[in-house]
């Protein structure tokens, strides 16, 4: 009998330690696991390295984690979404380190980390500042950059539904980085709006197989960044 459910977001993130690398799903608010992030803020771990495509908006979710100064470094492709003020302020004040990575390279580096591919060559970013300091090499007459896989201690993602084995389905464009982040961490934690018994999901349609998932947290009505920001919410 396998059952990966844990009782609460608080319990799920309890063992994230200071200095950990944490991948956080989402493209903007789509797929952002707000309840898990808020639990991490409550938990208090600091000096984190966060891997996430954006930097959050308003004063909730990822932006709130940054605002609480728990994150010393962020690996990111686009940290200045409309409505994002926390990151720019911290960055200009020299209080956070940024590793800027092209979005597709970020996705592929995370996939590589999860797939046991230590490094790969891509034409993306050749000749740009983001290739500076990176090894490059010509294949078939074209220059490529060596990019390395990324792994993390924890991954926090949001799904639509999971079974008790951790097989996860997502909602539309909230899928984005979650499937590859699920593969690339020592401990993968997913919050889902619905949990079903093993056998209730179609085996042909599973997006993230349960082998990649360690903990499932049932969050029946997850908040959305835009809805929280509309009412001027801030966390904590």
């Amino acid at each position: 009998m396998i059952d990966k459910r844990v009782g609460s977001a608080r319990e799920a993130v309890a063992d994230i330690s200071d200095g950990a690398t944490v991948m956080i799903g989402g493209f903007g608010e789509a797929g952002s696991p707000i309840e898990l992030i808020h639990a991490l803020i409550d938990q208090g771990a600091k000096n984190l390295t966060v891997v996430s495509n954006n930097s959050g908006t308003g004063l909730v979710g990822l932006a709130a984690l940054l605002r609480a100064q728990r994150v010393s470094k962020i690996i990111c492709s686009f940290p200045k979404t409309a409505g994002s003020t926390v990151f720019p302020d911290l960055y200009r004040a020299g209080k956070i380190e940024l590793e800027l990575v092209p979005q597709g390279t970020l996705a592929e580096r995370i996939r590589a980390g999860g797939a046991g591919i230590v490094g790969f060559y891509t034409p993306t970013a050749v000749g740009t500042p983001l290739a500076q300091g990176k090894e490059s090499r010509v294949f078939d007459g074209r220059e490529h950059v060596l990019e390395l896989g990324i792994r993390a201690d924890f991954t926090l993602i949001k799904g639509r539904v999971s079974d008790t084995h951790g097989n996860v389905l997502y909602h539309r464009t909230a899928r984005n980085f979650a499937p590859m982040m699920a593969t690339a961490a020592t401990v993968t934690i997913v919050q889902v709006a619905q949990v079903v018994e093993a056998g209730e999901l179609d085996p042909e349609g599973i997006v993230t197989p349960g082998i990649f998932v360690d903990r499932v947290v049932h969050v029946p009505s997850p908040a959305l960044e835009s809805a929280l920001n509309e009412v001027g919410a801030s966390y904590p």
Partner: protein
Amino acid sequence: MSVATSIGWTRDEIAQRVAQDIPNGSYVNLGIGIPELVARHVPQGRTFIYHTENGLLGMGPSPAADQGDPELINAGKRRVTMMPGAAFFDQATSFAMIRGGHLDLSVLGALQVAANGDLANWSTGADDAIPAVGGAMDLVAGVKRVFVMTTHVTKEGEPKLVPSCSYPLTGRGVVTRIYSDLAVIDVTARGFALVQLAPGLSFEFVQERTGAPIINLALEASK
């Protein structure tokens, strides 16, 4: 409220001109901003399939205001819809489409385009700017035809078509064709080459507003 100058093409006219050059059945990625207008001008009898790099093929138009799903969005994080035949996928798959050369066309905005096809469209390199690149570098490296839609000059009147980019590059030698308010210009092995002038404009007028020589193929042919 400012009134648009009557010189050259309007934004919608540029978008319409771009759309004319896209074959039926093309898989197209439209960049954030002006390029999004292309979707409004699909020529009669053609179907384009729109890719948005955050994970959707078969993107449809924006929903009515206060409608839509906050988790059905485009790369600009705006709500969109989906068309029959759409498919959702993760970021690795989405960028496999881009990097693997599966998209027929990418239409992007620009800060600068150089005569050798170099593109700068993500950063002015200003000291206080927050660096942010998104998928632009992947798109220009992976998609075989990259169209640029842009005003011909900056708000300050400086040419955006330049001998070489002074801003940080998005990619080297990646631009295929430029659609501006003044002209359609190809990037060729010999540099910029005129394809079409906006109505009422002379070659000299456009050349004066361009930072590098434009080859006038029609003129060459008549010599």
